[in-house]
């Protein structure tokens, strides 16, 4: 784990407002996402973050950081 | 006191932010000229609204030029008038007061919004440049029917707007052979004079009158109707002045059936 499970959950939670408002922001540029597309997008981002988090750390710096958590 | 450099910088930035906000608001007041609801319109006794010079008769009034005044009374759970029509390109001043509890007069999707507190008169001046249709709603809780309190504001193209009112006085039944008249009153709510044509259609017949009315004036029109030409039976009539219409039915009956009931 690159970050603690608690921190991972927090990151995912904090992501929610960004996913929700991403749609609004895109619409100013004329791109209209449907609710489903937003959900898929959000899911993809969460998946990417989870993958990043659980990927075995490939450097010593990461291992050191995950210690205190 | 020992304050960290970053914190000092943040203190300065926070002050800049605050002053910037105040500056923006001040710009809004001076630049685009946004005025707040004020105490200019004074107070009013809610029990005397009906006799009040302004609110005794609610609705749109023409002040001259492109300036209008709209007097509105809010009460649980409606506005009087509930439908308001003003022309595009006009400057409209709303005066709103409440007969009972606190309401609001909020034009949906715009920055036209005021609380309506009983005992006080809200005054706000708004420029309507484009035609459009806006809902009006009450956004302050005013009792169980609060959510049903609504109105409609229509901004019509300038050339479709007038404050002409048409009312008619016509018999329902007339004896064949007798002369009868259909009377109409055309009033002009605008300050400018009105020149138009009134048209009465009854059966196959058509009568026309040119009307000229001064600002804030009215004209009485009398149309003599030839009952012989109509013949016995029911005759629908329509009186038209610009796009205002009044209609009714005149029955021509034989002399023995009944009298000339002019109601």
């Amino acid at each position, binding site marked *: 784990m690159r970050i603690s499970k608690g921190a991972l959950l927090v990151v995912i*939670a904090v992501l929610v407002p960004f996913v929700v408002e991403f749609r609004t922001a895109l619409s100013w540029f004329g791109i209209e996402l449907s609710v489903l597309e937003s959900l898929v997008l959000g899911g993809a981002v969460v998946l990417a973050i989870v993958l990043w988090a659980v990927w075995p750390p490939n450097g010593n710096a990461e291992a050191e950081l995950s210690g205190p958590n | 006191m020992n304050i960290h450099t970053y914190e000092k910088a943040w203190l300065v930035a926070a002050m800049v932010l*605050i002053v910037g906000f105040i500056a923006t608001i001040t710009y809004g007041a001076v630049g685009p000229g946004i005025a707040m609801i004020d105490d200019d319109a004074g107070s009013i006794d809610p029990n005397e609204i009906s006799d009040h010079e302004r609110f005794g008769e609610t609705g749109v009034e023409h002040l001259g030029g492109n300036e209008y005044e709209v007097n509105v009374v809010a009460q649980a759970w409606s506005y009087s008038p509930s439908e308001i029509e003003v022309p595009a390109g006009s400057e409209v001043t709303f005066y709103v007061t409440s007969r009972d509890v606190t309401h609001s007069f909020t034009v949906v999707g715009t920055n036209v919004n005021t609380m309506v507190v009983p005992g006080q008169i809200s005054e706000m001046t708004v420029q309507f440049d484009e035609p459009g249709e806006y809902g009006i709603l009450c956004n302050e809780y005013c*009792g*169980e029917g609060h959510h049903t309190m609504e109105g409609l504001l229509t901004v019509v193209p300038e050339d479709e707007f007038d404050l002409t009112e048409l009312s008619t006085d016509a018999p329902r039944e007339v004896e064949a052979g007798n002369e009868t008249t259909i009377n109409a009153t055309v009033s002009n709510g605008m300050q400018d004079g009105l020149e138009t044509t009134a048209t009465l259609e009854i059966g196959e017949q058509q009568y026309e009158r040119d009307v000229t009315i001064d600002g804030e004036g009215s004209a009485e029109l009398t149309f003599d109707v030839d009952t012989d030409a109509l013949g016995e039976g029911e005759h629908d009539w329509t009186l038209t002045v610009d796009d205002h219409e009044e209609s009714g039915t005149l029955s021509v009956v034989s002399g023995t059936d009944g009298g000339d009931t002019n109601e």
Partner: protein
Amino acid sequence: MEVTRMSSTASRTYLDQFPAEAKVIKAAFWSSFMALAIGGLLGLVQALHRTDVLRFIDPADYYTVLTAHGVLLAITFTIFFLVGIFTWAVTTSLDRGVVDIRFTWAWYIMMVVGTILVGVSILGGVVDAIPTYADVLFTFYAPLQAHPAFYVGLVLFVVGSWLAGADWFRTWWAWRKENPDERIPLPTFMALTTTLFWYLCTLGVALSILVFLLPWSLGIVDSVNPLLTRTLFWYFGHAVVYFWLMPAYMMWYIMLPKLSGGKLFSDPLARVVFVLFLLLSTPVGIHHQYLDPGIAEGYKFIAMTNTMFLLLPSLLTAFTVVASMEHGARQRGGTGYLGWLKALPWRDPVFTGMALAGLMFAAAGFSGMINAGMNINYLVHNSWWVVGHFHLTVGTAVALTFMAAAYWFIPQVTGKALWSRQLALGQVLLWFVGMTFMSNAMHRSGLFGMPRRTAEPQYQGFNFEPAVGTVGEINAQVALGAVLLTVALAMFLLNMVLTSFNDDSDSLPANTYAGTLSGPEDSPAVLDNLKLWTAIAVVLVIVGYTLPLASIVDSGGLFGPDISGFQLAIETDPALVLESVREVMP
């Protein structure tokens, strides 16, 4: 001083130190949780009704539910928690108990009686057997009239809170005699300054109720001046939001740094912040009346300027608190410009709840700035935007901090370990996510004119036109958020109940709060001069309010122009409805 005190109590819980006070605090917390449970559930009923997802109450009853939701959550939940936490803060930081525990119980019971009176009078709106009526929402704007019991209950509750304040002052005076040369410990300083502005602001609502509304509801006086009582309400109504916010601030200042593993960055600045709140909380209430007739634009501008400067203490708090967290993270081994964030104890629900509450408050700060901006108020006034705003402030910054704090405090005052930390962590995260959905949609819908306080915002003559998406999507977001919040609420209550029955009392943390990097000795002694700050606060109030109040009384009369009371219920006043119908008929 602080360090020695903390080490002397290092392994003891609050219950060990102050068993008698712990009982009152526990009672206050549970009163608070009961209000939260009922009020929260009613919130779900409203959210589902308004958004047309599920309607099982009469639209008229919606307003009874809304009144109960507002009063129970904004007043009862917050203030019961506050009196508990302030009693903890004063006794813990002074390291002495209250002067007379019977007095402490007396004010607590008085507040409970007040709450019950208010609750029952509101309940009368839906239960026919109770002959009361109080569908006046938590703002009770005259001439909407409630049953006298409603006003009496509010007065009892507020007077109870005054006595609570007196209790803290007495405790402090007693400590002062024994420690004449000490600086006031920070938590006590926070409690006392908050109490002072509470006294100042509640004078307005007390005046409004005792002189005008209560005599009027009893029929002793015939009428009231609606603008006057409304202005007196908001004289109190803005400071009250800071009153319920201050315990959350206290938690962020004295608990968050400790939980992060560090120390409070600056004690002197914390004092400055609380002094600023004492000075500026009250003379700003007119910013709730930007769109009121009868108040001159100049007074609104003055209120706006004061309000904008009231941002300063909150902005300073943001820096101090985050810096304290960063200090903790770095002591725990965090490195880098932002990498230290990973070293914070995110698994700890107490920490995470408070940190997320603080994050939400940063967002709320922004919508609050919009609300404060005088003319931009035309855009958002009384729209759902405002509801979105205060669900971020009182509904998250305060409520989530309180819930997170409860995970620490309930073990402290009961001597029982928290039942489940995992459930607690899930709960604070779920609350955050639920509120994100609900509040975000509310803010957005306010921008296209969706009104607040409206049972069924669906109109005959027009439709709302959102800039993005549809009204249906907005409603779905609100309903989803409300459901998530309700689940989070249930998780919280379950954890609290099971903690109370928990047999495990091992490994309880000691009753400590954060030390400071820069202590009180770094701050000028004048900061502790409460008399001086109170005097300045009074002067500011006089400056801010004398002229507007004088002009309101001058134009509308002290008791108003014979305005009778209205209890606008469809069943009780058919004549009024008829009149309305007649009015709209051509």
